[in-house]
């Protein structure tokens, strides 16, 4: 290490790592879930602040080039911390209301977040692998957090088995790339001149590993079961923070380690983007369970993001980052509302028909759900529209018009399943006869902030698009 200044480049990592250890100790000695919650929430806010300030600082590499900081990596940290912070806030009420306030959840969330932060800051395939594994193992535990739920256990086991399998691919890919280039540093892999079979096999396996993590069809099989089985706010965490982290890392790998092979991987991603959009949307259409529908919808969103990656220009990467930002806001929001409705009847209260007529009972929750869902549809004036628009535009600029047309048709089909939730909330008669509880101030406030940001960046995206347009660190 050259100087202690290098520590300044990983402040969010230090905060979150420290917080994870601290909360684990608190659990062991106090068994006070509330204390764990407050520690986690406050330190997450601190880490979020540190990530935001890093966004405006310098960019570069540190720790013998193992870590990249500033620029894209910093924005990745911001996404991860937004996901973490809001999931933590929503998790407390959710677990308390469903009577399962398990203190360990916070330390596991923090360890997962630590892995994600490492992932978005990695400049070396080994660091990247460490990040992915730290994240994944914590998520396996989180998925099965509620031990007496059959679905939760099933989700955890399924996630673990398939996750371990995909990690094998990723690791093998890394090994082969090391064989081809003699290095695990991203920039040095880019310098490989002799691109033989080993190199291409390595690239292919690496792509498969990433496709699994961001649930690209046909590597998406685990997603619906895990998203449905895990506690809802944990699903929100997995769907947003972990996905955002994996995609940011994917961007780093594509732009730094494989820029020379862009023509090849662009075609591959083009193909998988079409699979993902079509399959994700079509399967989402037939889901009766809202969590499962949102799982398929998150697959479809990954498909739209792949359009941007297929374009592979700086403008496209910055569009994808904007998309991820919008995606994170609206997905946590939507899962937050789903979790809120679950308070009343517990785990299985996620069938869309359960929502019949509930929209007018707590008008605030209904309106917020409308905002999140319309944003997912990609309708202005919400941030989801701007994200989609920028991704599509970047791809049109690269001449990928056919791909974009598939994208818009797929998102036209997606309208139906998002609207279906609203139709049940507002246009059907109440059949369950339940009386909704008024959500707590913090819970409502968190959701209102998410909705407000969704609207704000839909109406006035300029500040963020400027920032992302000038972001350092995607391409050197």
């Amino acid at each position: 290490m050259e100087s202690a200044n290098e520590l300044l480049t990983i402040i969010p990592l230090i905060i979150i790592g420290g917080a994870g250890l601290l909360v684990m100790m608190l659990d062991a000695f106090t068994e006070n879930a509330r204390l764990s919650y407050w520690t986690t929430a406050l330190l997450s806010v601190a880490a979020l602040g540190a990530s935001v300030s890093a966004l405006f600082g310098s960019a570069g590499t540190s720790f013998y080039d193992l870590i990249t900081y500033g620029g894209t990596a910093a924005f990745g940290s911001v996404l991860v911390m937004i996901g973490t912070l809001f999931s933590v806030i929503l998790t407390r009420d959710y677990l308390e209301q469903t009577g399962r306030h398990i203190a360990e959840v916070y330390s596991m969330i923090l360890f997962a977040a630590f892995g994600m932060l490492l992932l978005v800051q990695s400049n070396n395939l080994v660091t990247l692998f460490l990040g992915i594994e730290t994240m994944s193992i914590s998520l396996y535990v989180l998925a099965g957090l509620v031990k007496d739920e059959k679905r939760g256990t099933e989700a955890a086991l399924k996630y673990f088995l398939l996750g371990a399998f995909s990690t094998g691919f990723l690791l093998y890919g890394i090994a082969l790339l090391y064989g081809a280039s003699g290095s695990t540093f991203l920039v040095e892999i880019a310098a490989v001149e002799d691109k033989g079979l080993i190199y291409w096999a390595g690239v292919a396996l690496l792509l498969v590993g990433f496709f699994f993590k961001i649930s690209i069809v046909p590597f998406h099989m685990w997603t619906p079961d895990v998203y449905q089985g895990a506690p809802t706010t944990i699903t929100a965490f997995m769907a947003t923070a972990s996905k955002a982290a994996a995609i940011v890392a994917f961007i780093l790998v594509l732009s730094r380690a494989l820029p020379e092979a862009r023509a090849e991987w662009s075609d591959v991603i083009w193909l998988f983007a079409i699979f993902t959009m079509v399959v994700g949307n079509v399967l989402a259409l037939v889901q009766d369970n809202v969590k499962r529908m949102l799982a398929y919808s998150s697959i479809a969103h990954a498909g739209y993001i792949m359009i941007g990656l297929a374009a592979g220009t700086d403008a496209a990467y910055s569009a994808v980052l904007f998309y991820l930002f919008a995606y994170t806001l609206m997905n946590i929001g939507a899962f937050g509302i789903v979790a809120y409705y679950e308070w009343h009847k517990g785990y299985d209260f996620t069938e869309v028909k359960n929502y019949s007529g509930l929209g007018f009972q707590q008008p605030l929750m209904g309106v917020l759900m409308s905002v999140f869902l319309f944003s997912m549809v990609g309708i202005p004036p919400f941030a989801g529209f701007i994200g989609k628009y920028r991704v599509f535009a970047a791809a049109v600029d690269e001449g990928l018009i056919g791909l974009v047309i598939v994208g818009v048709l797929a998102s036209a089909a997606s309208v139906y399943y998002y609207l279906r939730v609203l139709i049940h909330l507002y246009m059907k008669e109440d059949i369950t006869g339940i009386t909704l509880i008024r959500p707590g101030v913090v819970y409502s406030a968190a959701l209102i902030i998410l909705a407000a940001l969704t609207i704000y960046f839909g109406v006035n995206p300029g500040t963020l698009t400027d920032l992302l347009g000038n972001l350092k660190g995607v391409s050197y």
Partner: protein
Amino acid sequence: MELLLNIVIYLPLFGAFLLLFIRRAEWVKWTSLFITTAAFVLSLPLLLQFDISATGSAQYLTVSEPLLGDWDVKYMMGLDGLSMLLFMLTTFMAPIVVLSAWRSIDKHVAGFYSMLLILQTGSLGVFAALDLFMFYIFFELTQIPMFFLIGIWGGENRIYATVKFFIYTLVGWLLMLVALIYVGFAAGNMVNDGVFTTDWRLLTDPSFQLGLVEQTWLFLAFGFAFCIKVPIFPFHSWLPLAHTEAPTAGSVVLAAIALKMGTYAILRFLIPLFPNAAIAFAPMFAVLGVIGIIYGALVAMVQKDVKKLVAYSSISHLGFVVLGMFAFNTVGAQGAIIQMVNHGLSTGALFIIIGMIYERRHTRMIADFGGIAQKMPVFTVMFMMATLASIGLPGLNGFVGEFLILVGTFNSEVLGSYWYAVIGAVGVILAAGYMLWMFQRVMFGPITHKENNDLQDINAREIAVLLPLMLFIVWIGIRPTDFTKYSEAEVTRMLEDVQLRASVVVDNASGEDLPGWALHLYDVTPQLAANLDNETEEVEE
């Protein structure tokens, strides 16, 4: 005045927000009425100060800095001859719509009125937006409230109707979004130093020339979206359904304002943006327009439900609008614009009237009525006027629009045949047939259902709703120039400009690069291109 324009646009949105904090249903109604009336009153100076001779640039123009960072997408609002009347129609209809829903909406009142108000802001934005991207955003902003208006407060089959309406429209508009992005980049490369732009002034700049093949595809993508929205036959199937299921106020907004967005967009964007394609496809659109006129009329004739009948008559009327626009002369386009206003007034009035009678009898079937003229004399007069206006009786507004359109079509050089006008005129006769027949069955004859004996005539509120509409129906009929003068200069300039730009593109086009169908479609002479090639070859030798 720029500020005033923006106040008029956003006042309803502010009102919608205000309604969230009002508990009592009565207060919600009065607040909405106040807000919409205020917006109308505030919009009057815009009309009075409007300089009718100025052309080529919008008035009361607000232009912001680029909103999307590195892209030249601006908040750009203003009014010109094409949009002025429709803007005023929107502000004028809003209080009427609010009043028409006064008694019929009893559940979730605040939600209903806030949706109406958001819809108004969206509609005003659509008519005032001069940046293609802004136009798109405001358009989508009108879709969300419409979805809820039909879906929550609609009739029996409302969910199917609203989903069909929403998805159908969205499919077209998403495809248009792709074309829009393409246009933005193309315009950026040609006239804006490589920066993506959707600025209206740059898109109609003479040096922004899209190639003929590009124009064809883009025209079709935009045209598809607008055809669905208008709707033009054969993309109309959502309309009767949405109209029948929507609550009265929703139907009125849909007929008077929302349907105008499609036709307005054709005039504002489709024709000026792709001049060659627009001229080349004019006969096709004219044919679709004529089919719409006849088809709408024939289907209207066999309807048993009055509301459905009026919905199909809308398709017929909008066929006229499309026909007039693609005549490519001032008379036709003027007729199209005034016909849009007329259709808003007379069909709006008809839907309100149907709503009134539905509130009393909870049925809209023609067979359930008969002879009610005796019981409701004032109502009969109003209904009669709206019916005659819809038919196009001389002296009322409908005549002016249809007459101008038919004259324009008859003399159209672009269409080149008088048959469009002749067949279109048959539609007027058919309209007289189905409307008068319906009127006779509903209003005259003996009372066959004893429920109709107790019908009450319309009250003061209902008269207040209908009177302003009747006033304008007569005013436009007697002195059309008071209204057509607003659009005349701008329409003339726009059409000349379109034809000029089209001829420049054709002159510059080289036959060599074009596929055979494009040569045929755009009448590019291959000889010219061949000559040029020979010359270059000689030079090389």
